[in-house]
């Protein structure tokens, strides 16, 4: 099943024609409308007219998360605000979010791309789709929501959390497709068992999971526990949100919507393209976005482009599951967390030492984060009450600023291992 067969199965030559047309017009527009890009291009002596082939893209500068932050909130928008009908944001390292916008056309295009990904993952208009992503600034929930509606499926905007209620909805509303993070799907599976409800009592058939790295082992576990076929999909808010790529039911890599996104894989240090099929950092250029075009955005996600074609008939190249990140960003329950964010908060709290460690574990299905903080000796000699107060204060601040709950443990000074050179701040015990 395809959503837009004429676009998902284009022959390569025609696809490349469309890509170069769209690249040329996108570059012309960003040069005209976004001072950030104009300045960058001018500094390189580069004019949009210099681009005659897709290979010329390599001459353009990269765009990074830092560029987005420096242009907070609307600096990289290519249209006036009156043409923007939606704004989303993702968490940043220092409390500054990165803000993205959509025109009416962008929303329509985005819905279509998500519809492609959902269709590839088995969803049809006859499905009842339960979306267990948090509705809010995060692009996941609304992106999937509009795509599922576009298909004509029945959408249940369940949002995240309250697992027992999710399961009740799932059972009573006869949900056939679950959209969530993979870790949440596992939690749903475990909770089902605890509640003594067999998967066969549900109507679930498909699960579409994303926003978090996961593995094939985890896929098998989720499929077993929920009695579904699970597919992986990928996207990021800086580029559009969900809808960049997704697996079809062959599950041999994620088909990239290449008529809308130009992808490159580079070596994260040399910034040169890797050999075909090798792993590297994914770099994306948007080809059709109006409000928030991105030129060579460094996603920091590690993946590789798979050789050969997929038996499903889609011609879009496939990327492997994202295996990790080139920076130290942690994805906890779908929320982006940078260790530097935690550090920043700790430094603001009186009585803490500049030594801390972040331990990430997976207990059952869910990620658990514990922050170990060295505190001044005086606090340890003090009463329990003061320690407890301090723990609560740190915990609240972190939860508030990170948007995700973390445990805090206070430790005596000089108890955390000191390493020479680069401190090992993060201990990730998750086996994905």
């Amino acid at each position, binding site marked *: 099943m395809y959503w837009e067969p004429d676009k998902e199965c284009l022959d390569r030559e025609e696809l490349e024609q469309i890509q170069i*047309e769209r690249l040329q*017009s996108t570059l012309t*527009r960003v040069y005209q409308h976004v001072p950030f890009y104009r300045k960058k291009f001018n500094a390189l002596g580069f004019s949009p*007219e210099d681009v*005659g082939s897709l290979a010329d893209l390599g001459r353009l500068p990269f765009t990074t998360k830092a560029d987005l932050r420096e242009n907070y909130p609307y600096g990289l928008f290519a249209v006036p605000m*009156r043409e923007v009908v939606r704004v989303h944001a993702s968490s940043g390292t220092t409390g500054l979010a990165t803000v993205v916008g959509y025109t009416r*056309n962008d929303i329509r295009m985005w819905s279509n791309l998500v519809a492609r990904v959902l269709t590839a993952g088995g969803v049809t208009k006859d499905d009842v789709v339960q979306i267990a992503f948090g509705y809010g600034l995060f692009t996941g929930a609304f992106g999937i929501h509009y795509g599922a509606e576009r298909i004509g499926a029945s959408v249940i905007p369940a949002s995240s959390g309250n697992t027992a209620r999710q399961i009740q909805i799932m059972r009573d509303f006869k949900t056939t497709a679950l959209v969530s993070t993979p870790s949440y799907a596992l939690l749903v599976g475990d909770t089902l068992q605890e509640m003594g409800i067999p998967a066969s009592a549900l109507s679930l058939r498909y699960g579409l999971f994303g926003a978090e790295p996961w593995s094939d082992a985890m896929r098998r576990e989720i499929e077993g526990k929920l009695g579904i076929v699970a597919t992986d999909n990928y996207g990021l808010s800086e580029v559009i949100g969900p809808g960049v790529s997704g697996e079809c039911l062959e599950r041999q890599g994620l088909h990239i919507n290449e008529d809308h996104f130009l992808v490159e894989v580079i070596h994260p240090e040399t910034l040169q393209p890797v050999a075909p099929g090798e792993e590297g950092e994914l770099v994306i250029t948007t080809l059709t976005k109006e409000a928030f075009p991105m030129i060579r955005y460094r996603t920091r996600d590690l993946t590789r482009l798979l050789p050969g074609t997929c038996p499903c008939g889609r011609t879009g190249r496939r990327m492997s599951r994202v295996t990790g990140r080139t920076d130290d960003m942690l994805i906890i329950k779908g929320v982006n967390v940078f260790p530097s964010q935690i550090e920043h908060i700790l430094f603001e709290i009186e009585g803490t030492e500049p030594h801390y460690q972040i331990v990430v574990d997976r207990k059952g299905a869910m990620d658990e984060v514990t922050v170990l903080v060295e505190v001044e000796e005086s606090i340890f000699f003090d009463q329990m009450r003061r320690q407890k107060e301090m723990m609560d204060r740190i915990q609240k601040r972190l939860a508030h600023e990170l948007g995700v709950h973390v445990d805090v443990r206070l430790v005596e000074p000089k108890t955390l291992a000191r390493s020479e050179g680069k401190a090992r701040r993060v201990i990730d015990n998750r086996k994905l």
Partner: protein
Amino acid sequence: MLRIKNLESGYGRLKVLKKVTMHIRSGEIVTIIGANGAGKTSLLKTIAGLLPARSGEILFDTKDIGNLPPEKVVFRGCSLVPEGRQVFAPMTVRENILLGAYTQYRNGKGGAVRDDIERVYGIFPRLRERERQLAGTLSGGEQQMLAIARALMARPKLIMMDEPSMGLAPLVIRDIFAVITRLRKEGGTVLLVEQNARAALGIADRGYVLETGRIIMEGEAEELLSNREVQRAYLGRDLDAEGKM
């Protein structure tokens, strides 16, 4: 059907088209919209071989037609209905139509010409009525029909039309556009250059926006119609004023 890459052309030292890249699939109506002087007519003339291409490529049915003489382009199956009709005023309607069959005679398909005339008379019954009249005595709308009929006589795979609505009354424009839609229904492919962007996008599948020789936007007609920049610049809608109402 038509695939253009990095096409550049112009007049003397003036570069009119700057790395224009676009394509048309068989069976599509594609429109080029843009202001006066954006390069729309130059683009059609360059494809038709009336204006030399300075660089880039024009592939028609995967074969390069860049810088072929105009008659060869017509032989390949690509005809132009020029801006301002350009019918031969002192000749009759029928003679004008027959001139369009020139390539058919050369191809030894002269025998089919009678059927082809019947076909264009089927599309434009008015021309049959005025068959023996001098083309110069026709109304603007009738001349436009004649120009299209003449182009159709070469049995083009791709028909390019330059401002077919220019100077015509709204009712006549509607007729002409109905004919364009009909041509597509009968398997034709149309490249339509229009200042009347709303009407053109109304019947087109896709469109390109040309601005000072560069394509600044492309997309499905529906998308371009709902793009506010296009609305402001080419559809004559002042949304800010509307918002205040």
